[in-house]
């Protein structure tokens, strides 16, 4: 069984072997260092001309990648910490996503890869989950595989199928996790949803209908093996849905399975307010009006900077306990 990191590394190797148009740019991506989280380890040795280490110029390298994309290449940009994506926002929003939209016959297959999320004590500017800032941008997709997915397969799918910009989000704490693809403890189904990406569907029970539908993505998956086991012992039946495509979101599939439970919790690590969860919730209300037993409960991190100190950081970030309490709260509605 491979880890999330190994799976992603292997996926990049396969992609580089199969498609000579793929180029990777990023800071500190060359061997022996191999990138801040080692995702590109070995890649520059194997493909020296196609792995470019760049100056510390996030906006600049994004623009360079867009130039490559406009001229037939498939560039992958590694942004060392997702927090720095704000520096790339103008190039992504005002350039990369505009070209395929406003120009005729232009594609811009740009892939922005970036680790997001907290839990490692990196502090306020290196721990955020800023993907919500890029939600709802026309011609931009956000893909965030969990450790119930295969990130290496997904990035190959993006490189071969997508013709326009994609932000690919990797949660820092998932890198070392073992992929949960054949877990016997939790029956897992990977279903290709209406976005063309896969939604991981987990159930912590064998028979009956679920009490609660838990929706999350990416790094939220790290809580699930333990949490779902714990809730199963409390006889609380959960169906967990983890779409890897977070924008566009497979709302039809989510609504279909959420309707079984009638009680919904949506969890994400970004800070409270104007979240992915709130966007999903509004669409689910529309889809499931009259079928819900209680209001949809959203769980996020607190609305403040993410502290460095271990206990303070833990207090601010979304936790397994937050999700568990939200689940108990929605079941408690009569």
């Amino acid at each position, binding site marked *: 069984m491979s880890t999330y990191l190994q799976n992603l590394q292997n996926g990049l190797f396969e992609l580089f072997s199969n498609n000579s148009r793929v180029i990777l740019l990023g800071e500190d991506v060359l061997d022996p260092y191999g990138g801040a989280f080692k995702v590109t380890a070995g890649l520059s040795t194997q493909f020296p001309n196609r792995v470019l280490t760049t100056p510390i110029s996030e906006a600049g390298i994004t623009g360079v990648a867009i130039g490559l994309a406009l001229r037939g290449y498939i560039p992958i940009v590694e942004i060392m910490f997702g927090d720095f994506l704000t520096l790339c926002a103008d190039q992504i929003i005002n350039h990369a996503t505009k070209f395929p939209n406003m120009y005729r016959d232009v594609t811009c297959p740009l892939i922005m890869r970036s680790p997001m999320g907290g839990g490692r004590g990196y502090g306020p500017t290196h721990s955020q989950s800023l993907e919500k800032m890029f939600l709802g941008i026309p011609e931009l997709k956000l893909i965030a595989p969990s450790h119930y997915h295969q990130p290496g397969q997904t990035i190959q799918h993006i490189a071969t199928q997508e013709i326009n910009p994609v932000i690919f989000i990797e949660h820092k704490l998932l890198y070392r996790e073992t992929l949960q693809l054949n877990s016997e403890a939790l029956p897992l189904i990977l279903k290709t949803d209406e976005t063309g990406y896969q939604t991981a569907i987990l159930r912590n029970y064998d028979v009956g209908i679920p009490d609660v539908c838990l929706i999350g993505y990416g790094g939220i998956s790290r809580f699930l093996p333990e949490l779902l086991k714990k809730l199963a012992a409390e*006889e*609380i039946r959960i169906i967990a849905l983890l779409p890897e495509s977070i924008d566009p979101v497979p709302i039809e599939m989510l609504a279909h399975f959420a309707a079984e439970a009638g009680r919904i919790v949506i969890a994400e690590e970004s800070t409270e307010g104007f979240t992915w969860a709130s966007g999903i919730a509004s669409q689910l209300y529309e889809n499931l009006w009259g079928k819900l037993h209680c209001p949809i409960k959203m769980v996020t991190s607190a609305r403040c900077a993410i502290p460095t100190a271990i206990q303070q950081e833990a207090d601010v970030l979304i936790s397994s306990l937050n999700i568990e*309490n939200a689940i108990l*709260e929605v*079941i*408690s509605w*009569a």
Partner: protein
Amino acid sequence: MGMIIKMPLLNINDESATLVRWLHSDGARVSQNEPICVVETTKSAVDICAEIDGFLRQLAPVGSTYITGYAIGFIASSIDELVPNFEHIEPYSNNIVESTSPKWTKKAQILANRLGVDLIALAAAHPGVLIGEELVKSVAPSIESESLRAVNLTAVTHLPITHANDTHQERVLILGGSGGAALVLDILSDVLTQQAIGILDNNPKLFNTTLMGVPVIGGFDLAIQLWQEKKFDTLISTVVKDIADRVSIFERFTQIGIPFTNIIAANANVRRDCRMGTGNLIVHGSYIATGVTLGNNNFLAAGTYIEHHSIIGSHCTFGPRTSLSGRVKVADRVKFGTHVAVEPFIEIGTESVIASGVVLTSHIPSYSIVKNASNSVIRHAR
């Protein structure tokens, strides 16, 4: 009889709460619904109110944390009533809530709260067992009424008889001499097969008066003598104010073999394939749809609508214009106010009280008092 004040379950995440302060001194007179103490959970501070009038006995000191169900006080109904013996559950040590090995699953706890199951009692009855969802469901107050199983149900299709070709009229003795008796007399004025021969009432002031030409001839006890003298054939009870009274009157006479009858207004509509026991009083304009089962001793005021295949237990009273949709189940001794509306398939547990105008959209556990239109249980009567 007095009432023990137990630490309530205040929210689903707290199995215990801290007694912050008493609002009345030990022995003070308190009134029903008056706040008597303040308790605090991790989320909020809540007032606990007296459920009856009486005298407060403080049983637990403030500042400590007590498990849900712990007896923190007693309200004596008289100044000299003693605190009854009860099994004490140990309180948690001061301010520290240890997570001991759980006695029940969280799902069981949530369901027990929803269905009105006393989880602490259940756990005590099953020592060493982790109480689960199935066990809670199995002991949840059964909607199927106990007495309905014992009722001798007969098929009834009520077709008003408007011409007298029957030489034998059933002689009915009416129990209770107030408004209900007038209703019965009015109904019988249209019915040729039944005739009221007298009224019994325990109020001596009514003796020797008449109601619509029918005399009040004595107290309830007189029924036994009159039965022995074969002065009447059946009884009907018009006592509706207190259901417990209604039950005890019915049981007293049926146990010694004096039968009750069904009184059905001529313009009430009892459709095909209905079954009912005895002692039911069905007032003008009521509609009992096909397939309905009615137990004993129910009182259906004017315009009660009971839709098809609903099952009603015994000793229930329905205020005017109460409407039950199809396949509703009502247990015993349920009291409906005026103009209650019940959605299809709803089940209502024993001894629940549904206030006027309530629209029921979900099941009601036994012993619930349902008030206001939003259909929430405001307290458990037992």
